[in-house]
């Protein structure tokens, strides 16, 4: 299965990765090759196999519901580009 330039551009947009048109052409090839490899694996009949959610064959461990983390706002905000009134400031996202 071969991807189009438009599809690659859209995937890059969804991941918020800026790529130029030259790079896009290269990614078209690389990603299409990966999909071709996947297609090869798809030829194997896996209808009887349960999909694997995780490479480790273990169940999720659970923690008790207790508050163990305390306020470290000052520490975290010391590396933030901009803060005010305890809030992290970011470029406006809606008009």
């Amino acid at each position, binding site marked *: 299965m071969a991807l189009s330039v438009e599809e690659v551009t859209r995937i890059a947009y969804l991941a918020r990765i800026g790529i130029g048109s030259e790079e896009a052409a290269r990614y078209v090839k690389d990603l299409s090759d990966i999909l071709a490899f996947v297609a090869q694996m798809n030829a194997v009949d896996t209808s009887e196999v349960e999909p694997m959610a995780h490479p480790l064959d273990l169940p999720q461990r659970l923690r008790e519901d207790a*508050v163990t983390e305390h306020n470290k706002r000052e520490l975290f905000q010391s590396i933030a580009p901009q803060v005010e009134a305890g809030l992290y400031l*970011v470029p*406006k996202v809606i008009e």
Partner: protein
Amino acid sequence: MEWEAVIGLEIHVQLLTKSKIFSGASTAYGALPNTQACAIDLGMPGTLPVLNREAVRMAVKFGLAVNAEIAKRSVFARKNYFYPDLPKGYQISQYELPIVRGGYLTIRVDGRERRIGITRAHLEEDAGKSLHEDFHGLTGIDLNRAGTPLLEIVSEPDLRSPKEALAYMKALHQLVVYLGICDGNLQEGSFRCDANVSVRPKGEIKFGTRTEIKNVNSFRFVERALSYEIARQIEILEAGGQIVQETRLYDADLDQTRSMRSKEEAMDYRYFPDPDLLPLVLDQAFIEAVRQELPELPEAKYRRFCEQYGLKPYDAEVLTASSALADYYERVVQDSACDPKLCANWVMVELIGALNKENREITQSPVSAPQLAKLMQRIADGTLSGKLGKQVFELMWQTGKDVDALIEEEGFKQITDQGAIEQVIDQVLASHPKEIADYRAGKEKLFGFFVGQVMKATAGKANPQQVNALLKAKLKSQ
């Protein structure tokens, strides 16, 4: 043409855990911005989520309460999108394998019962909050809410009217509060509702194109928002137009829905299993242990109240609205051993009336259930008339004193002494000769006037049945 609406609701229930779903930060509401956002909630590199057992237990509890299938194995997935109040660039949610599948909730509308299907319920983390005002053109981000556990409950498109949607929303709200898995506070966003709605010609089997209305977060607005949207869709279709599948926002001030600014590109969340979390595996013992904790559910309590106490459906519904109110009522019935219907009337009219007037919860009632039970007994044994009972109730409400103490102090005792009542009647009749003449001339309505005068003269304390009987006899004999 006759149209039919098809509605499905997605409700986000904030689970009542102490700590977040994947971190040990507090979930308490109202803290100073970002003081409850730890490294995990901030999506710092090198951190790993660890699942909260209590959130899992609550999800299972819900699933059991709606007769759903509890997945022995469920998987967390990443829902990828970029927004500044979502620090990791993805929300941890469940996609293909949610923890709860299938199930139903019973609703009642206009005396008719319907089972509304529940498609699924899955665990996920909440995002933070964006504040768009007052930051000189920038947006302020508070991540205290990021990582708060949510149970997203998705209904089947089984609802057929805004009224049914409201009934479903209320029934679900009642259930999660009964279960103790949510505080049910709509103002604080603990219970949030999105509605999917489409219309189709009545009798048609295929669904029409639907729109999604975001954030219908009050019982008052869900009906109005849906009614507006249904009318809008019908108008478009009847004019030969087509519905655009889109997300719309309800504006309560204008009472209308409007299209949210269309995104440059349709969302594509690219879900995939979260490699940071292993599959959640539950054994039967865990599920059974949760089942043991289930309280009597609203539906079962409602049916029991109808049967055991002989209550009308409406009364049973009101009295089982919350488990605290139901417990209060049952305590009054048990302690007083009085007619359950009499107790129901007092709880529903006097008590709930007084609570509503002062905007109090049942748990904040100044009159306790045992106190109200004593009052019921004094009415049942004839010490107080219903009317006096109401006055005593008011005093109990204001002072917190017991009924017997108030009867003693305020002289509230009903006058049942025949001689005393007769004396008052004689006085009343003596001072109203004209009315007596009119009454005898056929103006029988004046009987009520005489009763009123007697009650007035005794400050309402005379036993009304006795007054009626004695008056009748006197008016006849004189």
